[in-house]
């Protein structure tokens, strides 16, 4: 059982801020994902929690105890890396048992605990094999088993699925999440893959340029991104973003001369926050647009993609902006056909083009 708290934690390498001061509280039993592109500071943050990296400022608390300057081995945290660092000369069983034997546990305890974790991960059949004889997936399962067997206060995982192929990543992803559901150990998981983050996280910490951009549940970061970075980064494809000029409750877009009347509930917010003629970005998810012959907006077909159970139509709005509309499987539209569409007014979002921050709707009484 454990909570992890970061208070104003930062990391500098010389003048360079690898992680700007950040606050983060991780609840007991929570699965937290640190998500962002390479170089955003997510791995450095994880390494500071583990103690493999020292902090340049701030404090780290584990279960209310200040562990900022404790050695990694004194923190009772298990680390799972991308590369399964197994002992090649030991069998899978011995690899899993190793941490317990090193702690001087009795033979009975070791056998019992290894047995439990092996059943949980369904790797009974590989126990006598050496790592070199195992598939990538089984190696990763053995590495996980070795981390689990210690029953640490928390798990830190650094892109543990990064080296696996797509198919296998999908199934390991659900296995790890399922383990978490069964064990409820506090977990901090680092990835650059937004699908992994969405699928696994109780909450997601979206990072970019050494700073936290947003902390929220998958539904929050997907439906209400805090800024343009999060809007683009989350989703596949990302949120549709069209730049326009705001005046008198209408957004005028370049190119195909689209005019979008701002829905009622947004009118007063935008009026207060924007001068007439200001640049604004409207955002909506591909599934929030519906093709409709009398639709308010229009785009020109650039390409259409059959994606299996559904399809995505790509439309150009002007020279630089392509938007994506999710549809049922459809008869492909010829390139350059004009397609009209509407946006579900409840799913429209607005961003300040200068600050890139999302506008917040006024809370209705």
């Amino acid at each position, binding site marked *: 059982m454990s909570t992890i708290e970061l208070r104003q934690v930062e990391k500098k390498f010389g003048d360079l801020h690898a992680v700007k001061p950040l606050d983060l509280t991780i609840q007991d039993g929570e699965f937290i994902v640190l998500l962002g*592109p390479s170089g955003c500071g997510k791995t450095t943050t994880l390494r500071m929690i583990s103690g493999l990296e020292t902090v340049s400022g701030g404090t780290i608390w584990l279960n209310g105890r200040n562990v900022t300057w404790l050695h990694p081995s004194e923190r009772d945290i298990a680390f799972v890396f991308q590369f399964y660092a197994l002992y090649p000369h030991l069998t899978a069983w011995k690899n899993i048992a190793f941490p317990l034997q090193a702690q001087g546990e009795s033979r009975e305890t070791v056998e019992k605990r290894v047995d439990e974790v092996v059943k949980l991960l369904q790797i009974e059949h590989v126990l006598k094999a050496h790592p070199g004889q195992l598939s990538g997936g089984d190696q990763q399962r053995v590495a996980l088993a070795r981390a689990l067997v210690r029953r640490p206060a928390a798990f830190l995982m650094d892109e543990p699925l990064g080296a696996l192929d*797509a*198919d296998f990543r*999908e*199934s390991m*992803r*659900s296995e790890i*999440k*399922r383990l978490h*559901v069964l064990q409820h150990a506090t977990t901090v998981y680092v990835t*650059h*893959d*937004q*699908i992994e983050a*969405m*699928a*696994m996280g109780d909450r997601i910490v979206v990072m970019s340029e050494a700073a936290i951009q947003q902390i929220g549940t*998958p*539904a929050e970061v*997907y*439906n209400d991104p805090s800024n343009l970075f999060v809007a*683009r*980064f*989350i*989703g*596949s*494809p*990302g949120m549709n973003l069209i730049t326009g000029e705001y005046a008198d409750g209408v957004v005028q877009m370049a190119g195909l001369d689209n005019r979008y009347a701002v829905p009622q509930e947004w009118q007063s917010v935008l009026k207060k926050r924007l001068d007439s003629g200001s640049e604004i970005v409207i955002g909506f*998810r*591909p*599934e929030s647009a519906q093709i409709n012959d009398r639709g308010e907006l229009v785009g020109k077909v*650039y*390409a259409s*993609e*059959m*994606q*299996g*159970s559904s399809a*995505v139509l*790509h439309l150009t709005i002007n020279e630089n902006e*392509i938007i994506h509309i*999710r549809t049922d*499987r459809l008869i492909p539209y010829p*390139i350059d056909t004009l397609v009209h569409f509407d946006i579900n007014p409840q799913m429209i979002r607005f961003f300040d083009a200068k600050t890139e921050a999302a506008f917040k709707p006024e809370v209705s009484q």
Partner: protein
Amino acid sequence: MSHVDLQHISKNFPGVKALDDISFDVKDGEFYVLLGPTGAGKTTTLRVIAGLEHQDAGSILFDGEVIDNLTPSDRDVALVFQQYSLYPTMSVYDNLAFPLRSPLRRTSAEEIQKKVEETAEKLRISHLLKRKTAHLSGGEMQRVSIGRAIVRSPRIFLMDEPLSNLDAKLREALRVELQHLQKTQGSTTLFVTHDQIEALTMADRIAVLNEGRIIQVGTPENIYDQPASTFVAQLVGSPRINLYKSRREDNTVSISESDVHLPGPLGSKLPSDFLVGIRPENVKPDPNGKFTGQLVLAEPLGVETILHIQSGQRTLLSLVPGISSYRLGDVVKFNIASEHIHYFGLNGNRLQP
């Protein structure tokens, strides 16, 4: 552009049958995708067409003419690889102009400039023409590589996993652009990938390869809706198809070790034991559903959620729109539409019930 025809191509490497009697044709202006896992023979097929390898048996025809004895340069094909093979010390302009400057082609300087500029515009790299390629990002480099292929009009474009080294967002964007380019130019393209989503989204037709043999050829819809075997059914579609051993008794099909008992197809010729395949989007939660399970895991992806529904000893995947409000442990009622059930023999081949 050309119609390309492969007839009974075989190729052996020491100890390996790399290609085993491969026949297919790429029509003029078609976007044709070879899809398969590592070692399926995709790249070897491409290299044989390019003339970089020579087949042990069979013939290749361009527009009805056998080209087996032509050298790679005489075949007039353009290759794009996974690794960007650019000249790092040259500018983007010179990299694009390079294939046109070949003395064999005798293209005038004005003509070269026109073609380079047109190509750069199509690929949105006009602003990069003066840059050295060593200073470009991965996505920009791959655009230049593609540009260098399309700057001339070869008989066929051969592309070997050109998007694999790019990150997910860039891959998505370039996938759409490649398709647009191919359609607007009407170029004959053979594209090799192990990524099922690339195959589905870009192809006019897909050939699924495994262990040097063609398993199935069809449009993306054919391949997805009518997979010829469990191999194809599992290769295409994400999340993966639900595939379970099943048994028929009278007119009921029961998925083994589960509580799912489906009405069997009428007048069925099915054997008593076989495999049932159900795509996750066809496992539909419904408060009045006929089947009952328990939610053991939910993976919200944003646009959709993958529900893991346990029924007996089996876990079925269900793909539902939006971010689902089901909670772990909830009882989930669901339906499976019988018209969307696939049947396969125990040997993996599709059965027509």
